[in-house]
């Protein structure tokens, strides 16, 4: 495994296909070894698939763990004394929460890698920042929700930060206006979760018939489209709507998950999600988990070299997506770029047990 300094010195979107694949294969295979030693559950799962790490010649051969397992089992590769923070994420699938166990090294890598990605997106200077959420979300620092962790992680790239919503999730218009007066004409960084931005920011401005001068703003948002898709709000409609009420015209989505915080997939100016050097995606065919061709829909597998304290480095998501290309995006970034098509549909499960249980 590379030492953190070397890892962080890599150019975020600078490695082309072969070089990146060599680096990831090396790094992810050694991570697998480390997790197999530190996490007996992971060792059992590798054994169940008949995986022999010494024969791995490409990271695609490392079996991905379904993200759902982090909700059912406590998976960590370091002793409890080494734990620094536990992040929980409810996801969208209900009551059970994922628990992600971080040691200092992993937590530090996560925030530093996020910084590298954001720097390449926003430029080096810290911008005045609006968090489109409530400060109540980040109160308990020991037991983080993924939402709180996300806000704090991204807050490092702003200054003079204000929260757009109060503790009751109400829009704080006077506070926002005062902030925008102070920073008139300057670029502003906004961050929020897609659904919150829509429901508590856009819809509220619309309802009040108010507008905000955010022509110089850039909004980074993530957390998935499921809730908005349910309301038939497309990404295009999302952009258009925000522009209507605030003049915002730089709106960048990112794809990421609590299980791989830090190495997020950021959207470029061409609307493509990009794998940074520390991460990658593979699109898997549901029929046999073989890799789908460019343009072919399949299940999204995500890998990241950051998780050192829990075996979350190679994950099978429940999202479907499509690979759009590798090293060839007109934005100039190297690496794979892709799009997310949404959460896989759970067909109504049929069992004797569901006369009542089905929602």
């Amino acid at each position, binding site marked *: 495994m590379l030492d953190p300094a070397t890892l962080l010195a890599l150019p975020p979107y600078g490695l082309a296909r072969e070089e990146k694949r060599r680096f990831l294969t090396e790094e992810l295979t050694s991570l697998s070894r480390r997790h197999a030693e530190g996490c007996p559950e992971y060792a*059992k799962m590798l054994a169940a698939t008949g995986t022999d790490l010494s024969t791995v010649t490409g990271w695609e051969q490392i079996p991905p763990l*379904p993200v759902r397992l982090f909700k059912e089992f406590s998976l960590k590769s370091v002793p409890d004394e080494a734990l620094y923070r536990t992040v929980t994420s409810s996801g969208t699938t209900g009551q059970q929460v994922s628990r992600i166990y971080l040691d200092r090294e992993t937590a530090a890598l996560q925030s530093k890698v996020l910084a590298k990605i954001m720097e390449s997106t926003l430029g080096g200077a810290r911008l005045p920042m609006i968090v489109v959420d409530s400060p109540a979300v980040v109160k308990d620092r020991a037991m983080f929700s993924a939402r709180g962790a996300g806000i704090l992680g991204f807050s490092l790239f702003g200054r003079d930060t204000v929260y757009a919503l109060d503790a009751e999730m109400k829009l704080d218009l006077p506070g926002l206006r005062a902030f925008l007066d102070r920073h008139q004409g300057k670029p502003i960084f906004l961050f929020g979760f897609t659904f919150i931005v829509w429901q508590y920011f856009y819809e509220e401005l619309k309802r009040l018939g108010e507008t905000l001068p955010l022509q110089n703003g850039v909004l980074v948002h993530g957390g998935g489209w499921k809730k908005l898709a349910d309301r038939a709000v497309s990404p295009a409609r999302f952009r258009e709507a925000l522009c209507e009420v605030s003049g915002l015209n730089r709106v960048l989505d990112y794809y990421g998950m609590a299980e791989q915080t830090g190495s997020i997939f950021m959207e470029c100016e061409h609307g493509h999600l990009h794998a940074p050097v520390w991460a990658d995606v593979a699109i898997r065919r549901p029929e*046999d988990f073989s890799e789908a061709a460019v343009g072919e829909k399949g299940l999204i597998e995500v890998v990241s070299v950051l998780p050192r304290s829990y075996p979350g480095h190679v994950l099978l998501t429940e999202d*479907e997506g499509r690979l759009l290309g590798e090293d060839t995006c007109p934005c100039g970034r190297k690496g794979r770029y892709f799009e997310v098509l949404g959460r896989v549909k759970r*067909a109504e*499960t049929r069992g004797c047990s569901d*006369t009542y249980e089905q929602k």
Partner: protein
Amino acid sequence: MNRSEPLPVTVLCGLADPREAASAPALPPFDSRVLAFLSDLSAALLADRRVKAFPDVTTFAFFCRRASLENLRKPYGTLPDRLGRGLVFHIAPGNVPMNFAYSLTAALLAGNASIVKASSREFEQTGLVCAPIESLLAGAHASLRPYVNVVSYPRERQDVTEAFSALCDVRVIWGGDETIRRVRQAALPPRAFDITFADRWSALVADAQAVAEMDSQTLRTAAQGFYNDTYLFDQNACTAPRLVYWLGEGVSLETAQERFWRAVWEYAQPRYPIDPVVAVDKRTALYRAALTLPGARRSPMPDNVVTRIRLDALPPETADFRCGGGCFLEFASPTLDALTPLLTQKAQTISVLGISPSALRDFALRGGVRGADRVTPIGRTLDFALVWDGYDLIYTLSRRIAA
């Protein structure tokens, strides 16, 4: 709920107010009017072109043919001193579309009026069966109208469940623990009782030597039968095997496993498209097995259609493992002994391949086990019989007047 209020239910067939079924006189088991009605229903279903697309409805239509009904009656002889119990209220399951019809038919054959709550899920089969019933009740079989009520209402309407429960003599609940718990909160009259068809667990026992030596046509038929037992309802029916117990060892075991699974795969592969969510479920199930069951390992298969998980031992938790969509635990031993501890109250159907059903039944009887209510040949696990889940439905749903 006040008796004079209209009920918020949709009547698919039967009385406009199904509550009036409570006053229908009880009939003797295998009453001639009931037999005539069922055989006319059978004919109506077999004449309906839409039914051809639903093998399960066709199977039900054959079950109701006159000759089949006579066969069902045979073991009971004449039952001159018995009458149906009165009104049976059925809560139909959400997994197997046609179970509501079998439940209703069994109650009718025993001499009862029925109110069936159809599954809240909209199965096409429900309408295909209820429409001809309604026509028969509007014509030649008008006198049976009070006996054949199928309704639908949202499961949240506990008040409706309470209203029907308060009127019935027997309540038949198909469902998992949660359904049974909720339905049981609705009080029954003092003399009434519940028959519960709870969530159960099933297995296939296969003799390795026999499978290794089986001719390929027989093997193909077995594979097709296994497909019908499992994949046809996404392996979610309680009768669907979740464990394949191989009786055997050595070379013949390896040959048998190889041959059997290849035959199953060849039959299932073109017929069972793998849903992305099922692919993730099955992979998750493999890892869950790895973390909770001894020595769980995936056996290689060409794709995700058949998922096989080999185990080194069968602890009691094996019975808690569940995953639909074609995900099977496998265990092999030269004897059946390791199966005994799994035959708890949760065990329902044991299907067999290469062994006689009676040999397996004798094994269960000798073991004094609490579970395993039926042993069937492979491919027949979904066949409905009047003895179901250990209940003889004709006797249970009728009573004897001593004189």
